Each structure stands twice: as structure tokens, then as C-alpha cells.
């Protein structure tokens, strides 16, 4: 059952508000939590996700930085090793390129290389997603890279509810966690309980139950999958929509069980299609539900092109309700 359906939650928050609330709650609870990034204080980031936090927690804990992604991410790593729980803010996921050494050669490996002696309880918050007309250097979804790296955990919330619960879990986790937020989702609303709750990593959420086909969606693509499921419903195809919520750890069991039931699967993710997240998830399904699959697992990701600026071009680079719907229909032999 979709988790949210089980509870009657009256309050609605935007995705951005949910993120902010998670941060505020954790900062109140734990004085070692701090925020480090560009324009995070008074400006509250360009997306205004952090508005108000500096007013409550002060400039000692909500810290504006120079445009030095490598440098302040490295500071986050060292701070995390020595008693803080920094939440490092990378404004656009595309700038993760600058943090790779700090995250991959340092953060991800410190615990292991030290034989378990040091740990790195930090969160790197950043964005993903295209269709904002921001062109090739402000539109990438690079979570596949981090999912590939042992020592890191990777979180991809798809609703305000998940964003709050997963971010709180991320902050309390003793490992480096990379937390991706879809830029286009910041203003979307959804029910979010007021009090304390966390969502465990590695537990997929069945966002919609169905029997004919499994659509695995991540982050921005969960709503797309749900939209496609609604369209499929109209033509009598019952789609189950599963959101892994974390690509690492990955809840393989839930994915496989669903496809064993439905016998067909589509995996939709906004990262580049090739060598991306869909490849891993499709492989897991193709192996785990091998004898149940009635058709190859279909993968849908961003087109293998740098994201173009021009709207008519950009719009065809990412999966949409319609394209997922078409693919599902075809897979179910109803095309």
C-alpha cells in the first residue's frame, strides 16, 4: 500500500517547504547540524528553499561560501569527521563535477580506508532535472555517478512527504549521503505530517498498485509514471508504480516481487539513459524476475545528448507521461 494512503494528513507543504522543515527540525534537535553553501543564508538559495533558516539559526550555522564547490565540500568532509553534521548545498547538480574528488576519493572512502575508524556523517544536497530552459550545464541529473561509488548513499525523493522523511534520515546517517532534489518539483504540493518522522533508506515505496505492468520511476519521473499509469488505466491496463527512493541502498526485493507479479517492467529515470540508473535497475529486474518477464525490461532516460536550450528540443529529451504511456501500451501488446 502506498505509505501515504495509510495516514490521513491534512497539512500540505510544497516540496521546498518540506525540505526546509526537515532541515529546521534537525537543526533544532542537533546543534552540530549546519548548512554550508553558496547564497544559502539571506538569499536562501536561488530556489528559496532555505528561506528563513539563517534568521532562526544564525550565520554560524547557515553559512554562505565563496563559489568554491570543491573547497567547501572538502570542508564538509573534514567537519563531518570531527563532530559536525554538515549539510553541504550544491546549487545545481551539474556543479557536482567539481566535488567529485572530495566526495568520491575522500568522503566515500574515509571510513573504509581508516578501517572503520573515522566516519563522515555529511549530506550533500543538490538538484537534478531538465526542462527549465537552462541548457546543458544547468540541467543534468548525475545521480548515476554517485550510485556507482561504494561508500556513498544516494537519495531521490519524489514527493514532499518523502523529501522531509528522507532528508531527516540522511542527516542522521553516519555516512556521506547525496540527496538529489528535482528543481521542477520545488513548488509542487503534497501532504506532509507536522511532527517527527523518518523514512528508512533502501525501502521502495509502491506509489500505486497495479497488476499488469510495473513502472519504476525515480525522482521527477515518479509523477510522470503516475500520470502514465492514469492514462493506462483508461485503456484497461493496471500499472504498478514503484519509487525506489534510494538508488543506493536499493530495495531489489520490492522491485523484483512487483515484476514477478506483473511480468512487465519499465524503468524511468531522468539521468542520461546510457550507462545510467535505468541500466542497473533493469538488470536487477531482468535477473531477479527472469522467468516471469513476458517482455524485455524497457528503459527510459534522458536522451543521449547534452540538454539543449531550445524548448522544442529540450522537451523531447526527457520521458513524459505520454511517452511512458506509449511504451507501456506497446509492452503490454496493446499498441
Amino acid at each position: 500500500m502506498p505509505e501515504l494512503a495509510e495516514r490521513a494528513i491534512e497539512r500540505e507543504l510544497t516540496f521546498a517547504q518540506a525540505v526546509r522543515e526537515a532541515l529546521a527540525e534537525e537543526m533544532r534537535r542537533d546543534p552540530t547540524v549546519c548548512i554550508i553553501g553558496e547564497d544559502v543564508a539571506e538569499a536562501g538559495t536561488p530556489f528559496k528553499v532555505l528561506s528563513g533558516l539563517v534568521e532562526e539559526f544564525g550565520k554560524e550555522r547557515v553559512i554562505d561560501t565563496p563559489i568554491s564547490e570543491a573547497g567547501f565540500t572538502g570542508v564538509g568532509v573534514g567537519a563531518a569527521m570531527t563532530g559536525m553534521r554538515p549539510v553541504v548545498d550544491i546549487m545545481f547538480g551539474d556543479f557536482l563535477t567539481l566535488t567529485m574528488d572530495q566526495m568520491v576519493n575522500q568522503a566515500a572512502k574515509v571510513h573504509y580506508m581508516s578501517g572503520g575508524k573515522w566516519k563522515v556523517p555529511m549530506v550533500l544536497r543538490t538538484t537534478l532535472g531538465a526542462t527549465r530552459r537552462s541548457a546543458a550545464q544547468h540541467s543534468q541529473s548525475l545521480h548515476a555517478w554517485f550510485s556507482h561509488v561504494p561508500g556513498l548513499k544516494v537519495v531521490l525523493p519524489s514527493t514532499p512527504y518523502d523529501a522531509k522523511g528522507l532528508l531527516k534520515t540522511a542527516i542522521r546517517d553516519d555516512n556521506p549521503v547525496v540527496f538529489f532534489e528535482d528543481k521542477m518539483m520545488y513548488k509542487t504540493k503534497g501532504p506532509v505530517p507536522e511532527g517527527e518522522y523518518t523514512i528508512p533508506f533502501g525501502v521502495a515505496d509502491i506509489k500505486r498498485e497495479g497488476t499488469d505492468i510495473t513502472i519504476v520511476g525515480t525522482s521527477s519521473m515518479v509523477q510522470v509514471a503516475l500520470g502514465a499509469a492514469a492514462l493506462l488505466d483508461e485503456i484497461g491496463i493496471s500499472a504498478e508504480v514503484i519509487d525506489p527512493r534510494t538508488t543506493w541502498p536499493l530495495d531489489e526485493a520490492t522491485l523484483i516481487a512487483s515484476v514477478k507479479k506483473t511480468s512487465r517492467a519499465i524503468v524511468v529515470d531522468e539521468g542520461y539513459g546510457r550507462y545510467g540508473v535505468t541500466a542497473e535497475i533493469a538488470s536487477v529486474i531482468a535477473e531477479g524476475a527472469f522467468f516471469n518477464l513476458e517482455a524485455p525490461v524497457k528503459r527510459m532516460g534522458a536522451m543521449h545528448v547534452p540538454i539543449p536550450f531550445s524548448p522544442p528540443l529540450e522537451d523531447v529529451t526527457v520521458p513524459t507521461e505520454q511517452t511512458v504511456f506509449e511504451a507501456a501500451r506497446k509492452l503490454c501488446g496493446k499498441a
Partner: protein
Amino acid sequence: MSPLTDKGKKREAKKPDVKRPEAKTVEMKKPETKNSNGMKASKPEVERSLRMYRRMLMIRLFEEQVNELYTRALMPGLAHLYVGEEAVAVGICEALRDDDYITSTHRGHGHCVAKGAAPNRMFAELLGKEAGYCKGKGGSMHIADPATGNLGANAIVAGSAGIATGAAFSAKHKGKGQVAVCFFGEGALGQGVVYEVMNLAALWKLPVIYVCENNMYNEYTHFLETTAGDILSRGPAFGVPSESVDGQDVTAVYQVASRLVKRARDGEGPSFLMCNTYRYTGHHVGDISREYYRSKQEEHHWKTDRDPLKLFAEKLIAQKLTDAPSLVKLEDEVRAEMKAAVDFAIAAPYPNADKVEQDVYA
């Protein structure tokens, strides 16, 4: 805003506040006047001054149109206006040859125009049209044009520091005296790669000029909150001689640029030039409420007392190289030119969706 008035043009305003003189044919004054040193200005010098003024005006009015396009919701995405900083791009590029290289930034329209880009194809790019410099694939932050030596605007802060230095590397190898200019905001001083490549440029004596446009803000944060120590001593620490110039004075920018360009062409290596300037409007077109990070008075001061176009206009008039009516006429001309360029862009077709997979690989 009009360079000839004291008041900043409000973004809502649809036409400039300036009172127009009666329309009449504008003659640029004959070039037999004094230059800034009290010497008689030579014909090329006068032509240069008027060309620089025109280029600055082009940029100013180009950006006016961009803001208009945004306000009218005709432009996809955002844009970062160069208004207020025109003298930097124009003064620097005036010192360059056509085959010299530049790299630019997210705030790049001014650099492109100054290096010779055609406004109509720039607007087309901003609107994502096929006729744009990048066939609509780049947009505002990625205008590139081999014909004018423009290696491309870059949406990664300091993202083109390596590219510009590499172009200088080629230039040295090819031996044709080309020079590369790397434009970047003072925010880019936060990126370590800038120091890595300055060190390389110094070691290898590359003909590259690092032009830091210090408009005092990294987005919404004052540069003094992000920049410790002393900017001008950073270059020398890596073997790159550095100096600063009033970025609102196009002649001063041009003069120091000429000297540094000559130095580079002569094989004497890289240099760093900090141009002190100001952006009049928001970090991008959507950044309207700015008082939490800077005061209206500060903006007002720059717009009224430090406007590069106004200052230069006054100087040109004082030097009798032109007069006010001529400049107003020029403004009308250039505005019409920009309007036509915008109309071209609006009318131009989008690329076909099937072009999306072209140009990924050469």
C-alpha cells in the same frame, strides 16, 4: 536605461525617459578635436571612440530588449544582463584583433556584442531559434562564434578559464600573434582552477589576459564576504602581473587592455586585469527585489554617477567629437536596429525536434 538621462529605466517602463530632440539627420562631428590628453585626436582615435560608444550603446539596448522579452514572457528561461558593465567588454575587445579569442560567462551578451556578434542571431539564440548562433541549442549562456573568435559563453563559474588558457597555448604554438581574453566575474576567484591555469600560463608565458569583472556581487553575496586577502596580489603570487582599472571608463579600459594585449602578443606572457564595475539590474532578469543584499542608494549612485555610457558621452561631447542630439539620434538608430533584430528572432522558426540528436559528435 538611456545613457543620456540620470534616471535608471525601470524594468516596467516600455520607453526610455529621455526627451527626444526633433528628428534630424545626425552628423558625427568631424574628427578634428582634442583627445583626452589635450592632444589633437587622430582620425583613427576618433573613429575608435565613436565605435566604442556605439558598441556600448548596442549592448545597453540589446539588454533592454532582453529584459523586455523576459517581461513579455517571450524568452525561455532566464538571462543575466550586462547593463552597467558595458565599458569593460567594449574597452577590452577594442584592443583585440578579429582572430583573437575570447571566452565569456553566464553574463555574456556584452562580450559577444563587443567581439562583433550580430544581435539578430544573438536574439535568435536567446529565443532558442534555429537561426541563433548555436542553432538554439545553447541559449543565453552559451553563445559561441568561431567567426568572431568567441570560444563560447560558459554557465560554469570559471568554466572557461582552462579553455581560454588552452586557446593561448594554441596561439603560442601557431605563432600568429593571437591573444586570448578570459572574461569572468569576481565570483570566479573562488574557483581553484583559476589559479591552476594562471600558474600554467605564467610558466609557459602564454598570451592570455584574465579579465576580472568585479561588479562586487557573487549572485546575492557581496564579494568581500567571499574573498579574503587581496585580489590584485593573487595574480603575482602565480607569476601573473596584475592591475586594476576603472571599469566604467571605456578609454581607460581600452588603454590598459592595449598595453596588456601588446605584452601578450610580444611573447611576454599573461596578465590579470581587474575592472571595477557594477551590474545595474538583478543577478538575472528575475531578480527584482534586491534590497536584502544591496541598497537602492548604492544602485542609484552607480547609475547616476558612474554610468559608463553617460560618462563617455559627456567626454565625447566635451571633446566636441559629437553632440547630445547626435547621440540621441544614435540611440534611436541603435534601438531600431535592436528592435529589428528582435523581430527577426521572434519571427524565426524553432529548430525541428529531429535536430536534437545532431551535433552531439563532430
